[in-house]
C-alpha cells in the first residue's frame, strides 16, 4: 500500500495506517477551523466523524480528498482513495456505467464489464445503460457507491452519503455498505451527523468540536448481550454530550 503526501512525497508510514494526520491546522482568514489535530485510521478500520455543522468536518474531508492542499501539518493518504459525496453527483450526460468508470482507463468493453460487475454488487446491473436522470435518489447514491468501489480503494471517504435518503432507504443502504466494506476491506472515513448511524456502522467514532477532537472511542460489537445495548446507549449519551446535546436513555431516566 503506497501512502503519499498530497503536497510532497515523504517516506511511507511504518505502520499500516491508511490515514496519518499530524499537527494539522487549517484557517480561513482569521478563523481557525482545525487546530493542531492528529488522526490515524488503520487499514480496514471504519471510523465515523461526528460534529456540529460548521465544526470543520467538511474541511477535514476536503483535505483528505486532496481537493484542498492549503494547510499546515502532515496529511498522508493512500493513492487509491475514493469519495462518495453527500449528493450522488452523477454526470447527467454520461450513462450509468460511464459514470461508474469515470477517470478509469481501459478498453470500452473491459470498462463496461467491470462497471456492470460492480453495479451488480449494489443491485443495479440492469441500469448500467440508462441515464442518471431515470434513477431514484437511493439508486443514484448506490451508483455513487459503485463508482467509489470500482477503484478498489485503500481508503473510502464518505461525506454524509445517506443524509438525503429516506429512513427505509437509509437502513437498506447501511446494510449494503456494511456488506461491501466486509468484502472489500477498505479503510473507511464516514462523515455524518447521525449518531445512531455512526454507532451502527463504525468501529470507532471521533467527535470534532471547535477544531479539535473532543472524543475518540471504540464501538464494542462482538457480543449480543443486554450489556452491549447499555454500553451503546452510554456511548450515544457521551457522544451527544460532546456535541452539546443532553440525552438520557429512556429506561435509565
Amino acid at each position, binding site marked *: 500500500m503506497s501512502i503519499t503526501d498530497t503536497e510532497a512525497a515523504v517516506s511511507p508510514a511504518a505502520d499500516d495506517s491508511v490515514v496519518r494526520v499530524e499537527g494539522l491546522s487549517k484557517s480561513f482568514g482569521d478563523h481557525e477551523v482545525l487546530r493542531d489535530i492528529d488522526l490515524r485510521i488503520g487499514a480496514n478500520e471504519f471510523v465515523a466523524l461526528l460534529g456540529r455543522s460548521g465544526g470543520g468536518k467538511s474541511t477535514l474531508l476536503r483535505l483528505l480528498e486532496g*481537493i484542498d492542499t492549503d494547510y499546515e501539518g502532515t496529511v498522508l493518504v493512500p493513492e487509491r482513495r475514493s*469519495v462518495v459525496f453527500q449528493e450522488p453527483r452523477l454526470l447527467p450526460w454520461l450513462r450509468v456505467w460511464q459514470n461508474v468508470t469515470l477517470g478509469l482507463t481501459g478498453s470500452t468493453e473491459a470498462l463496461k464489464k467491470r462497471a456492470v460487475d460492480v453495479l451488480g454488487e449494489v443491485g443495479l446491473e440492469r441500469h448500467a445503460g440508462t441515464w442518471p436522470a431515470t434513477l431514484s435518489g437511493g439508486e443514484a447514491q448506490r451508483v455513487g457507491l459503485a463508482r467509489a468501489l470500482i477503484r478498489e480503494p485503500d481508503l473510502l471517504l464518505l461525506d454524509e452519503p445517506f443524509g438525503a435518503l429516506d429512513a427505509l432507504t437509509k437502513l437498506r443502504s447501511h446494510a449494503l455498505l456494511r456488506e461491501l466494506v466486509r468484502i472489500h476491506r477498505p479503510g473507511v472515513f464516514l462523515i455524518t451527523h447521525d449518531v445512531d448511524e455512526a454507532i451502527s456502522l463504525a468501529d470507532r467514532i471521533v467527535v470534532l468540536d471547535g477544531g479539535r477532537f473532543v472524543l475518540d472511542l471504540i464501538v464494542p460489537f462482538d457480543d449480543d448481550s443486554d450489556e452491549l445495548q447499555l454500553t451503546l446507549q452510554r456511548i450515544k449519551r457521551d457522544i451527544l454530550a460532546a456535541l452539546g446535546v443532553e440525552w438520557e436513555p429512556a429506561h435509565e431516566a
Partner: protein
Amino acid sequence: MTVSAPQISTRSGAITAPSLPLRLTAKPSRVPNWSLRLISPLALLVLWEVLVRIGVLNGGVIAPPSKIPGTVVELWGTGDLQAALLISSFRAVSGLLIGASLGAAFALIAGLWRTGHHGVDPLARLLLPIPATGLITLFVLVLGIGEWTKILLIAFGTFFPVYTNTLHGLRSVDPKFVELAAVSGLKRGGLIRKVLIPSATPSFFVGLRFSVSISWLLLVVAEQLNAKAGLGFLLTEAQRYFRTDIIVTALLFYAILGLLSDAIVVGISRLVLPWRKEYVGS
C-alpha cells in the same frame, strides 16, 4: 363524565378526488400537435385574404395569399425559384457554418484557458455591439459585391450568439462536477471532454438557434443591396416590376427556410443531448 367519539368538525363539505388548480403534466391530446401548430399561420393567411377581398388592403399593392400558388408555379417553371433557393441557402448555410464554428472555437479558447480569455474576450466584447448590418458598406468597399461579402457578413453576425452562449455554458459548469473529476483522477483533457464540453453543449445549441435566425435576417439585407441571384435579388426585381405576388412569395420562402433550418438544429440538438428532459407545457 361521558366520553364521546371524536368528531371531525373541520371538514366543510363532501370529500372529492384530489385535484390541483394547476395542471402539471400534459394531457394526451386527441388532435396531433402538428395540426394545432398550423392554426395560427393559417389564421393569418385567412385574415390577410379577407382584408384584401373586402378592400381594406389594396390588392394591387399587397398581393393576397391566394395568388401565391400561381406565382410559385410560374417561378418554378422558369427555374428562377429553384436557383434563388439554392444560392440563398448556400450563402446562409456557409456563413452560418463559418460563424458558428469560429464562435464555438473562440468560446473554447476563452473558456478553457485563462490567457485565452484575456486574449479573446476583450476583442469579442468590443465587436459585439457593432450591428452587422452597419458593416455592409465597409464589407462592400473591401470585398466588393461578390459572394464573400454576403457570406462573411452572415459569419460575423452568427459568431456572437454561439460565442457568448457557449462561453457562458463553459463558465457556469457546476464546480461540484469539476471536484468530482479531480477526485476521480481525470486529467485536464478528461475534464474538458467529459465535464466541461458536455455541460456547455446545451448552451451552444441555444446560441446556434439564435445564429440560425440571424443568418436569414442578414441574408435578406445582404441580398437586397447587391446580388444577381437569390431570394433577395428576386425581391428587388419584383419591386422594380411591381410584382407584389413575387415579393410575398419570396418572403414566404424565407419563412419556410427559416423554419426548416430551426427544425434541423432542434433535431440535431435532441440527437446530441439525449440525456436531457424538457418541460412540455400542459
